[in-house]
């Protein structure tokens, strides 16, 4: 494994206690050029995670708090008439940043949501007929509060598909909680963080992810998983081809994180809950939070060929 990457993980784990799996998944998502959706209650460290990652990776960070009265221009930016020069000048919105934390994305109206999601998908912003590229790398961490849904617009399934992964943080375990309560203030810790990686190194890693070898045997496995979701009577819809591509990209990044140059079935299994949980829906119409369980079921239902 490349050293800077290990350093990133180590440093992040010092601040975010007891969540090694989630940190790795978040990094995987970043390395695979996907975007991340965190669905959890307030106060479990969603914002902190985003902060720590941006500081550790040395990325520009912007946090956008979504509200119901927000307009697309509030995110993308707006052209304002200049009295002196007599023309319009574009004032870039907060989205022009390498790392975005879109907090409580379900509070905004669908119109604003789709402005964000389009930018995510196309890595560019088109406003008043002019197309402006977004900085690179561009990584969005969106958060959604699953409870207290009154007056919110939960992302529809088609929009959820734009996120490579959805993860949950959950409560810390007893040891981590004790560390958190007795330790230094997290904000101070974040302020002291030093970038462990150059942006160029991050680009390099993202390039490496694409080169991680995938054998025909592994593709068989991925296809078996996709086929199962489409043929089984358990799911409302099968996984889309885009989901399949995301799964493979995430598995490659995971393998790279684990220091391997080829993907093995365990990599696929590790990222599958993150990649599939928000895309699968049980026919029995239970709560969406069961996605994780469904993904586990899926893993156990498909034999490795």
């Amino acid at each position, binding site marked *: 494994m490349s050293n800077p990457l290990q350093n990133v993980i180590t440093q992040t784990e010092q601040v975010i206690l007891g969540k090694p799996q989630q940190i790795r998944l978040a990094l995987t998502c970043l390395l695979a050029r996907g975007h991340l959706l965190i669905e959890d209650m307030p106060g479990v460290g969603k914002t902190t995670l985003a902060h720590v990652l941006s500081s550790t990776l040395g990325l520009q960070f912007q946090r956008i708090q979504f509200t119901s009265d927000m307009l697309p221009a509030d995110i993308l930016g707006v052209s304002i008439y200049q009295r002196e020069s007599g023309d319009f000048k574009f004032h870039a919105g907060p989205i022009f940043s390498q790392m975005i934390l879109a907090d409580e994305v379900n509070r905004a109206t669908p119109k604003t949501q789709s402005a964000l999601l389009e930018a995510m998908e196309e890595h560019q912003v088109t406003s008043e007929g002019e197309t402006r590229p977004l900085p690179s790398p561009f990584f969005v961490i969106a958060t959604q509060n699953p409870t207290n849904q009154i007056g919110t617009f939960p992302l529809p399934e088609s929009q959820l598909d734009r996120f490579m992964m959805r993860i949950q943080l959950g409560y810390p375990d007893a040891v981590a909680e004790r560390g958190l309560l007795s330790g230094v203030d997290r904000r101070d810790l974040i302020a002291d963080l030093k970038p462990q990686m150059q942006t160029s190194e991050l680009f390099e890693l993202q390039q490496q992810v694409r080169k991680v070898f995938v054998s025909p045997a*592994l593709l068989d496995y991925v296809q078996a998983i996709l086929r199962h979701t489409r043929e089984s009577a358990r799911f409302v*819809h099968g996984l889309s081809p885009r989901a399949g591509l995301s799964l493979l990209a995430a598995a490659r990044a995971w393998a790279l994180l684990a220091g391997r140059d080829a993907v093995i079935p*365990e990599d696929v*299994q590790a990222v599958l809950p993150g990649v599939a949980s928000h895309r699968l829906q049980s*026919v029995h119409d239970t709560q969406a939070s069961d996605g994780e369980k469904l993904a586990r079921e899926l*893993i*156990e239902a498909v034999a*490795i060929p």
Partner: protein
Amino acid sequence: MKLTAQLTYGLIACILLVSAPHAEHLPIWVSAECGALLLWRAYLARSGKALPPRWLLLGITVLSVLAIAFSFRSLFGREVGVTLLILLSTLKLLELKAVRDATIVVYLSCFIIITNFFYSQSIPTALFMLVTLLVILASWVHLQTGGLAFKSRLRIGGVLLLQAIPLSLILFVLFPRVQGPLWGLPQDAYASSGLSDSMSPGTMSKLSLSDAVAFRVTFDTAAPSRDRMYWRGPVLWDFDGTTWKRGRNATTRTGILEDTGMPLSYTVTLEPHNKRWLFALDMPDKLSIKYRLTPDFQLLSEKPLNARTRYRADSFLNYRANPDEPSQQLQRALTLPRGLNPQAQQLADNWRKQHPHDDAAIVREVLRHFNQGGFEYTLEPPLLGMNGIDEFLFQSKQGFCEHYAGSFVYLLRAAGVPARVVTGYQGGDYNDLGDYYILRQSDAHAWAEVWLGERGWIRYDPTAAIAPARIESGLSAAVSNPAALPFMARNPPPWIRALRFNWDALANQWNQWVLGYDTETQFAFLTRLGMEDISWKNMALNMLAGIFTLVGIFTLLMLRRLVVRQTDPVQAVWLKLCRKLEKSGLPRLAHEGPQDYASRIGTAHPALSEHMDDLAARYIGLRYQSQHDEGALQAFKHAVAAFKL
């Protein structure tokens, strides 16, 4: 699962298919109402409009039930039950709100399938119901799986149906049969057409317009010639001027047959006709089922025959029947209504004067009269008045077998010769595919019996004197306008005949083996299969064993699809290793990757840890990394071969 329009269409189709055959016997307004409700429902599904409000549905339901109660004058009984079931199921479609409602509709459709067999148990009905069941299953699959394509739903339904066939065969063959129907079907379940216990002009000719099968006969040995095949039915004694009736026998003594030859044995499969008569060749000796032989050699069963009945019978073709008939009976055979038909009486008196002591000669005179008197054999004789016999004998001279048999007996009685009318069937259509004879209603016939002292009762068929072809080759050869006859009695082209015979042979097999599969047939069949101790318990055990075997076979077939056949050499070696570990109680889970498996074994058996990690790494290298080299594979093979626990 949402109740989509497509699903609704499927459910509408279920109810429509399953209740369509009922349209024939439902009140017309019920059929119309159901049709309208289905159309309405389809329109609602198509336009996506809301379902009707509760009060409206309730109103329609209450009104419909009241209307049914009014038109049937009852809310109990089979007809009413079926009508209610269909109407309410159709209404249920207008109440589809949750998946539960749809499930109920599916199960209701399955239930209504059964009710169709109350009315018809023929092969077409069974086939139609099979198709209906397929549609119902497809809707059910739709309900269970949601967004599956129509074709694959139908395919799953079909597979389910096919899988059910062997199971239902086992249940059908081995399920212990109870004597009689499982629950008594009411009498009106059966069409009743056939010979009645009276005969008046028109009875027989009307009956001969029906193509319906009366019974089928299989002879053990060669069949007798056609002109000797008189299937004896009700014997009629009492005449009131127009109608011949059975009346009451004046004796209880069973008829006696003397000077008989060897009996002729055969099997009769009699269609239900709701009367008590059983049919056998003149003269019957004994039957294999419970029966009673009347003094005039008529066979009666204990109860009206409302189920298809099979029996073996023995008959004597040569006999002297009751040469010592009691005088009260002979008196009955001479009785005539007073003051009617003077011309006939005069004719008879003339003959009597010519042959004062020779009854047989008088019989010959009557037959000669019919033969040479310009009589015509026709299906459409003119109507007759009060002195029907006179009008027929001296004016119209056109008649069917009942006219001839009736006036023949009348003339003989008038001349003082004891005689009676016998009704039944004559002849039979040979089906060479099934090697049996079919007797249809169109073969119904009436003839006469004359008592000639020492010689007993002798059969005379006056029809043979006018139209011998009727007896020798059937109705169509004898009647002047065959177009009025039923199709099969009209000598259709040979290929249609063959088709009909094929179909009838099939229907006969169906009747004998499917519908007629009762305790007796089951016993015979299982004995032929080699089952020795045919008890209730044994059959149930065999049935369960059969079901378990079948389900086991299906399970194995399905499991085989889960087992991945392996052709990759690397994978083969890995699986060999997994089998080794499995033997020592550490099986690999199907979804467990090599690294996870190795680490699990390492935790369970720390001693193996290093070796396992090495093997897993080799396997991963060969299978998931691009190391396609023969040397590494050989090394992996050796390492696995050397691996010991």
